[in-house]
């Protein structure tokens, strides 16, 4: 994520990051008076203003003012822009991704792309740069999810092509490209990175749900069902596994398998979620792919049968 690095013009660094131009003015407050109490988070204080919104200060100096925010018992979150939130807690401040943006990142990491290319424009007589953020899927439900998340985060509606079989949606925006690129959502043709430092536990679940919808698999096995996550990119998959560990799951070690695709032989890496955690996986993470949802429902019926006292899976 583009971060302020201490030199030059502050305004330009904000502009580079969000195309916003100028940071939020946090100087004179124009006679606003404070409403309610003051909440302490580490060295920061959060005050609710009578004019609406919140004021964040540190050591008596106002460092930011926000129109809206959400105060939880252990933290406060202020929305910034493009699906990014500022989290203030006893551990300090950090920028985190909203669940929508995290899920969008997961979808793009699994079956999408974020890249730019040049093309010589004969009419203009010079090279033109094209910035594209893509997602492809055979499931119309996932395409609709991609559309919805793009609109929620960036206020941009993707264009579509390919009506039969594989559907593709794309956004052509330099701003979106650089925002996702700074997060390292897609680091290469088949490579990705999880911005875990910018994900809280809700964000991690949303990211995994997005990623699993693309590169997850629920298959029948001799013991019932098997939930696996797979990818060609071993380092990226290790980060996915680590994210599961962060959430308290106990995934297996990463295994390798060989897949023949047309004339190419590919090495696919995968790991699985243990059977005893399937129910928790379904409740906390789940998937948006219709075939996964069907299988999760079947698994839910099994749980209901086996556990007469439980059976609360929906």
């Amino acid at each position, binding site marked *: 994520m583009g*971060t*302020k*690095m*201490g*030199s*030059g*013009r*502050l*305004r*330009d*660094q904000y502009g*580079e990051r969000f195309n916003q131009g100028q940071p939020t003015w946090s100087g004179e407050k124009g006679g606003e008076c404070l409403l309610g109490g003051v909440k302490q988070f580490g060295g920061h204080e959060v005050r609710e203003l009578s004019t609406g919104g919140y004021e964040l200060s540190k050591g008596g100096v106002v460092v930011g003012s926000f129109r809206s925010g959400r105060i939880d018992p252990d933290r406060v979150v202020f929305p910034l822009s493009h699906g990014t939130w500022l989290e203030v807690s006893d551990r*300090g*401040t*950090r920028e985190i991704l909203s669940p929508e943006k995290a899920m969008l990142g997961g979808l793009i990491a699994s079956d999408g792309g974020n890249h730019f*290319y*040049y093309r010589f424009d004969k009419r203009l007589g010079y090279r033109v740069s094209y910035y594209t953020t893509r997602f492809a899927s055979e499931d119309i439900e996932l395409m609709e999810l991609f559309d919805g998340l793009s609109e929620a985060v960036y206020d941009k509606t993707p264009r579509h092509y390919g009506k039969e079989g594989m559907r593709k949606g794309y956004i052509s925006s330099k701003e979106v490209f650089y925002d996702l*690129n700074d997060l390292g959502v897609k*680091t*290469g*043709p*088949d*490579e990705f990175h999880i911005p875990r*430092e910018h994900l809280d536990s809700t964000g991690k679940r949303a990211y995994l749900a997005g990623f699993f919808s693309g590169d997850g698999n629920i298959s029948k096995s001799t013991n019932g069902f098997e939930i696996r996550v797979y990818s*060609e*990119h*071993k*380092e990226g998959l290790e980060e996915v596994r680590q994210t599961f560990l962060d959430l308290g799951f106990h995934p297996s070690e990463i295994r390798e398998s060989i897949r023949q695709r047309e004339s190419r032989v*590919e*090495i696919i890496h995968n790991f699985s979620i243990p059977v005893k955690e399937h129910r928790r996986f379904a409740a906390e993470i789940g998937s948006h792919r219709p075939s996964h949802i069907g299988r999760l429902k079947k698994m839910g019926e099994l749980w209901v049968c086996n556990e007469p006292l439980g059976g609360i899976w929906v």
Partner: protein
Amino acid sequence: MQKIGFAKFAPEVDLVDQRSWVWRDGAEIDTILAPLWHLLTNWLALTAASSSGLHDYLGFHGKVVLSTVMPDELIDKLDRDRYFQLIKDLRPDATMVPDNYTYIDAPLYQSWSQTIRLVTFANDFLDLDIPVIGLVKGAISQQYVWSLQKQVDMGYVSFALPSRELFKQGLLDGAFLSARHVLERNCPDAELLFYGLAHPFRRAKASYSNLSWFIEAKHTRYIKGGKSYHMVDPEIRSNRCDCGACKGRTPVELLSLQTRYGKYIRTLALHNMLDLKRYLSGDKDG
């Protein structure tokens, strides 16, 4: 204070991405810059590096210079004792004076207090038993001159100028002139490192350090003659390269390597690093 003796190009490495550890692919490098903030934002890496020291963690036997240039959020979290503990654990061969933030569009009070903080840290870091690199920072020329003069008076002879943002915003020339003004008059033997500079900004006697060679490789960009190209750019796509990474292959042939284990990125990163090294050493063809 002992001089570091920078080569013309000293690559910065990504401490949490092993694909940038190009010495494992046979690259001969004397000195690398290791950004402390990569470790501070990755608890697992910090634990591993602290327990074994940076040399063993990286498997690198050359000189490791700890870079303290970091995002503002992290600067505020570290005090003198924490820096000393980190340096003791990580055991680098040299370190920089802790970074500060000085913005030209923030109130002068902030940049002056940060400048005073930098000079205070520079004084504290004289207690270390390893060479320390001074920092050239400031929002206005008086701050550059004052902080640099103080560091020269303390005996500092190696300096780093964090250049990325300054170059992008067209402010680097002014900062460089302020630094040269002080160094030429008071410390003619001093060495200056342009830190974080991706674009060719050639100045005699200066050294350069950046991570662009690796960032560009991660974005599948190919560096030739110090300039970055897309891999299939008609200008370079069919040109053979005889560097130790490409071994006579063209960018298109390199692109066909893109398969598993990140090998393609590693090869491209090594090529980019070797090209920048040759280009900045004076071979304009790279």
